[in-house]
């Protein structure tokens, strides 16, 4: 009995159009965003480079800014969120 039931339902189309749920992207608050290490390091290097006048620190800051921009994620296409994440 069980097997026939299984086979019948397995051969039947598993799709159920009325049961469709549209995509709801998970809401992530700005506080809970994954920490942007590259951006943080960029700020640290930039400040060190400006304060102590080390050339290489400032160049490393620029490199880390580039890395942070490259890893930017558009979670909800929210411009404000991406701006806060980048900054």
């Amino acid at each position: 009995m069980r097997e026939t039931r299984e086979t019948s339902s397995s051969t039947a189309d598993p799709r159920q159009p009325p049961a469709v749920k549209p995509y709801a992207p998970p809401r992530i608050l700005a506080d809970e965003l994954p920490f942007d290490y590259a951006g943080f390091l960029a700020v640290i290097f930039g400040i060190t480079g400006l304060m102590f006048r080390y050339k290489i620190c400032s160049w490393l800051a620029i490199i880390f800014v580039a890395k942070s921009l490259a890893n930017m994620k558009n979670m909800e296409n929210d411009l404000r969120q991406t701006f806060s994440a980048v900054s």
Partner: protein
Amino acid sequence: MAKPKLGRWQLAVQGCLSVRGDALFILLAVLFIFSFFLHEITRCSVVAADFEGFDADDLEYEDEANDAFHSQPLKKPPPPSTTFTQSSTPESHHSPPPQSSSDVPATASGEPAEKPYASSTLDFWDDDEFEGIPVQIEEPRPKSPPPSEPADVAGAGDGSTVQTTNRRWRHSSYAVEIVCISFLIVFAINFFIGKRQNELIALCWASQFATKDSIFDKNFSLLGTGDGKEDAPLLLKEGQDVFKFYASGRRYCQSLLATMELRSRHDLIARVMDLLLTKRDTITFEVAMNEDAMDHVVLAVARKKTARSMHKEAKDLQRFAAVMATPPHGRRWVAEDLMVVTESKEVAGDLITDVVIDQVFGEKAFDMFGKGFISLHFTDQHPGSRKKLLLLKFALPDANNMADMTRLVTLVPYYIDVIGRYKLSAQARTKTEAARVKAAQEAFKEMQSTRQEALQKRKSEKKKSSEEAAEGKQSAEAMRKKQEKERSRQMKKLTPKVKMLRSH
């Protein structure tokens, strides 16, 4: 055949680039570059100033000394000042006073008048104040002739060496800039190359498993995050290395979300780090089951190391499940590499069917097809908003070999059906029920305690605010009382006169 498109992300990227945030970072970068150039210019100007300043001072001293000496005839012709003009060894210039003093005893017998002049030059020459000057002053002198004759590079002596050191200094000062700018150029090139590689992998997967007549098309009525029309994009690009595929409209489950996490090929620094730490392209299927479709199931299957870490990290596995050390009797079981963590052995035995063992988890099958399998986690006590979840994690093969993971991907709809239909036996149900009731009670207690804490906080805050208001009121009332008292006193002063008059 609809080609899978990445529509949403394109709009997002365009919107992102047009935003102020990007401009702010470009401005910051420009500020940093500007600070370097300032730094370089100030350094150059300071070094030049050293030469210029002392050059002028030296000329003055030279003239005075010359005048002082020419006014009196001298036996020994070279006065200390002229030694500056000669490009002799630097050592002689370190101590002009001793030299003049050595001059003095030589000529002391003949001209005692020389002495006061020697002492006067000594006054001009304070050794401590002008230490090191003679060396520096010497350098621009030979420097001035060579720039006028740039072809004469073979000039002997200090001049040429000084000039080449200056040239070398200029070249070496830009080494850092050259290295960093070239790194940035390589970074930009790698960004576009890596981005395309990641997109290619994602599109290959989608074309294999998500397009028309593919496995997901046959199982789900809605594919992709769009409106469900023909042109809607199938994949959602969240970042340069994260892609999502959504499907819905099937029996037993609400939705399926496949998240592809690829290596960060677009980021040069991450790419270098990946050489040290091995990271694989992974795809995680998250199936949200219907409330009535899933019975009490807490089960995880993975390689031994991964299984142990999952058992420690996942709260539901920690709480409800235990490692299944011995396989069930009289049955083929999963490969040696794999470990099963389950709440109930009976449930594990029922869910890891013979079909699955033959196809994927058995010894032979696992050697052939199991390389891409990472983990499997079925739970109805998931911590978070959705309680009933099936989580399957696989490694993605190369873009050209996508068909290798077909067997693994077929596990997904297979297990949706198996778990959707599965009902626990009475024994297993009683065992699992007890643990869950306990967990539910504890959760309820925790909720109550947090609610009480929140209420207490609110009450204390209200009290504080009311007290402050009362204090404010009291101060206002005190003022009013004082004013009233004053008025009554004034009134009293006025009224008695009238009364006295009347009485009389």
